[in-house]
């Protein structure tokens, strides 16, 4: 299977057709839902929280955040950022409750310090490693993103980013950029060594280092 990250930047790849395909495929929806639930478990939120969804796409994860029942600490409010206007258009049609922004996370996170209780990102941050033009580099995009994310989270807040690195070098580059921004960082791998292996970058603000572990 070819990786979408290798063909086009996300705003071009997720055109109207791809966006609808992504949102209506039940297989993709189920995978997305289970990854979101796993990320929520790792965030371990006890109270209704204000959450940033990085690369929110058509709002599949956001719907889950809005639907967390009070006995499980919800429901949560969320703000979603995505670079694909087509994906956000699908989110609008699906009437999601979160607030949507057309924005490039590689340009930063335009919220004041301590805004969010938590952040979640499903299958998005590997796109930061794509830099198409000569005046932007993957390193610069990663630095702006993680620096902005770090500042926008409240002290003691957490971010959980499920991602698909292309290779070990990319996985290292991404986690190193998070640590440089000030995060305590750990990588958790579910079903390691299998085709359905999933990586979660678990980031803490003002917390201790998390151990890297298999899940």
């Amino acid at each position, binding site marked *: 299977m070819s990786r979408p990250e290798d063909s086009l930047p996300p705003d071009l790849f997720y055109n109207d057709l791809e966006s609808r395909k992504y949102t209506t495929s039940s297989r993709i929806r189920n995978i997305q839902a289970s990854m979101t639930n796993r990320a929520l478990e790792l965030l371990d939120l006890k*109270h*209704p*929280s*204000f959450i940033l969804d990085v690369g929110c796409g058509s709002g599949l994860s956001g719907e889950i955040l809005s639907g967390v029942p*009070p006995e499980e600490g919800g*429901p*949560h*409010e969320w*703000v979603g*950022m995505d*670079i694909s206007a087509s994906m*956000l258009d699908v989110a*609008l049609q699906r009437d999601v*409750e979160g*607030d*949507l*922004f*057309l*924005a*490039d996370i590689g*340009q*930063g996170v*335009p*919220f*004041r310090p*301590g*805004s*969010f*209780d938590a952040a979640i990102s499903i299958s998005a941050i590997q796109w930061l490693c794509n830099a198409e*033009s000569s*005046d*932007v580099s993957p390193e610069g995009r990663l630095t*702006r993103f993680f620096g902005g994310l770090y500042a*926008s989270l*409240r002290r003691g807040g957490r971010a959980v980013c499920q991602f698909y690195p292309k290779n070990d070098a990319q996985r290292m580059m991404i986690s190193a950029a998070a640590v440089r921004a000030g995060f305590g960082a750990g990588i958790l791998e579910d079903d390691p060594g299998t085709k359905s292996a999933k990586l979660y970058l678990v980031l803490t603000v003002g917390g201790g280092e998390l151990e890297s572990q298999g899940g």
Partner: protein
Amino acid sequence: MKVLTVNFLTCAVKTCKTSPEAFPLHFRDAELAQQDLEFNPEFIKNMLLRLDWNAFRVTTSELGFSTIPAEKPEGDALNDETLLRDLHKVLLETQVMEGKLVCGHCAHEYAIKEGIANFLLPNHLV
């Protein structure tokens, strides 16, 4: 875009990061809509601690709300359900569907269409 969100939003332009005039962003030609959302008092109380009350007063006066208290509610006032319901209505149920957000420092205009703000910037401003 919800009134709540604007209270946390800053100008994305690099040179505005440390400028006090860049917050809050100012609404122009705002068209409002009301959306019924479930009342979540715990969430409102959580956010009230972080809300910038002066910025909230600026935003609400730009949008035509005139009944916002001068001081941020604290202590016992946080158990006043009428007050929390009023805040829920303004912060979460009031949405700006069309219009612009304008930076008071660099004058950059962020368009809002169908409730979605466009924060994409040309690379030289990042």
